[in-house]
């Protein structure tokens, strides 16, 4: 409905364009909301986008906001409400067509600050769930204060572009309101994953910082952080799970799943079953570490250990195949 500049209007990137305090209603006609492929130093603020989305189950993705690869350093994009159109399944519940997205970011921006993305889907109808609210295929972005519901992933990183890096995501909340959300943040590994936006074109995500990631599912298991590069779902749970911090660094070695990373979360799970995998963390206390299983590779510091073999512990596999805390002498 609105294009911020165009190649015909500006020989060099356009600038100084803004849209604010407005509601855009696409009237469920299959049109997009705001497209910026040409305007740098331009911003969007206080915008409601309604009735926008795809009108069929195939075809190009129709988005509320697209920040395309032709322009860098635009934004910020702040205080945005996206409420997708209802057109896809008129036989029962009116649902949002899968080829609908809230935001697509294909370049460096001045960030997304405050956005609510509402899709309309149903837990039992995965063929009608839009894969992701926010597609992050650009580097060096900050995305913060996000609420999404009715999309499979709230934010998907590196679904279509290889080597997306330098992004920071803060306070990302995936919820089950107008439909389920299964992952608040989904890191792609360059593989096609059913129901998600991850494709063979993406992957190699790096230098990604996640802070304050939350999922609030309703009668289904969901995860705050799904990292396909390392094959873990961090803190999968129902009903509510949080991850205070998950840092994905850079690849270590050449094998898959070898990345520098750190998290404050304690539990990781493989995808598709409940086998516990390690998501190493660093625990601190004034008593000895708890007994029982732990995440292999994790550290634990007892700040009142007083002896050389009761101060620092590492979680290792024992001869019985189970994990336990082992003091570092």
């Amino acid at each position: 409905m609105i294009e911020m500049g165009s190649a015909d209007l500006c020989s060099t990137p356009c600038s100084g364009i803004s849209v604010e305090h407005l509601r855009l209603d696409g009237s469920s006609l299959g049109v997009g909301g705001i497209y910026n492929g040409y305007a740098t130093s331009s911003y969007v603020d206080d915008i409601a986008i309604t009735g926008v989305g795809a009108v069929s189950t195939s075809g190009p993705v129709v988005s509320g906001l697209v920040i395309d690869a032709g322009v860098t350093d635009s934004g910020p994009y702040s205080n945005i409400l996206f409420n997708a159109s209802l057109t896809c399944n008129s036989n029962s519940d009116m649902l949002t067509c899968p080829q609908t997205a809230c935001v697509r970011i294909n370049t460096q921006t001045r960030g997304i600050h405050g956005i609510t993305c509402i899709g309309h889907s149903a837990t039992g109808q995965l063929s009608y769930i839009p894969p992701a609210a926010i597609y992050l295929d650009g580097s060096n972005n900050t995305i913060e204060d996000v609420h999404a519901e009715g999309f499979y992933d709230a934010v998907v990183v590196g679904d279509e572009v290889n080597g997306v890096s330098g992004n920071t995501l803060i306070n990302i909340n995936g919820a089950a309101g107008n439909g389920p959300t299964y992952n608040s943040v989904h890191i792609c590994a360059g593989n096609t994953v059913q129901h998600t936006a991850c494709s063979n074109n993406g992957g190699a995500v790096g230098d990604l910082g996640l802070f304050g990631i939350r999922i609030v599912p309703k009668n289904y298991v969901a995860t705050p952080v799904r990292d396909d590069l390392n094959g873990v779902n961090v803190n999968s749970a129902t009903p509510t799970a949080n991850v205070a911090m998950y840092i994905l660094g850079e690849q270590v070695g050449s094998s898959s799943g070898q990345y520098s990373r750190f998290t404050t979360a304690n539990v990781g799970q493989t995808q598709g079953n409940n086998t516990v995998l390690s998501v190493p963390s660093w625990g601190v206390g004034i008593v000895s570490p708890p007994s029982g299983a732990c995440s292999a590779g994790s550290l634990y510091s007892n700040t009142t250990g007083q002896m050389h073999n009761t101060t620092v512990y590492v979680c290792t596999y024992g001869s019985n195949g189970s994990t336990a805390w082992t003091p570092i002498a």
Partner: protein
Amino acid sequence: MRISTRSIGSWMLQVAIVVTCWLFGSSAPLQAQDNTVWTLSGGQNAFASSSAFIDASVLTFNGATDICARLHQALISVGNSGAVSAVIDARGIDLVNSNLTCPELANVPVTPWVYGTSTTTTPSTILLPAMPITIQGPWILPNGTRLVGAGVNANLFFAASGQNLTFCAGQHEFND
């Protein structure tokens, strides 16, 4: 001497009414002209016209009175004045004095910047009315354009080509 607060309040109210009547009652009828701003004249506060602030509700373009025509004429006026940019106030445009649907000309949807064969890229700040505006094609904003609505009541509704939207108490439906 004792003066009651009621007397002071009554006196202030009368003065306020007189001032209001002087400001609005004595003003000229609505017409196409620059907006009035305060300025200094001979060391005294005075009114003056400002080309930097244009009331689009009184403008027409080739006789057309839809909101896109009014905005287009305002943008052309800014360009003709030699000003680099201006604030165009469209908040006075409503369903009584204007058509809030931007039409098609020769099957091409018009916008405030492209109206038929007439085009302009003048930078501006456009203050939209708190009314639903129906567009039938994308608005492509030129360099230096700031589009400012009045909140969620200032809507841009997209309608398919050849269709009009009918608004009723906040709801809308298609009429072919």
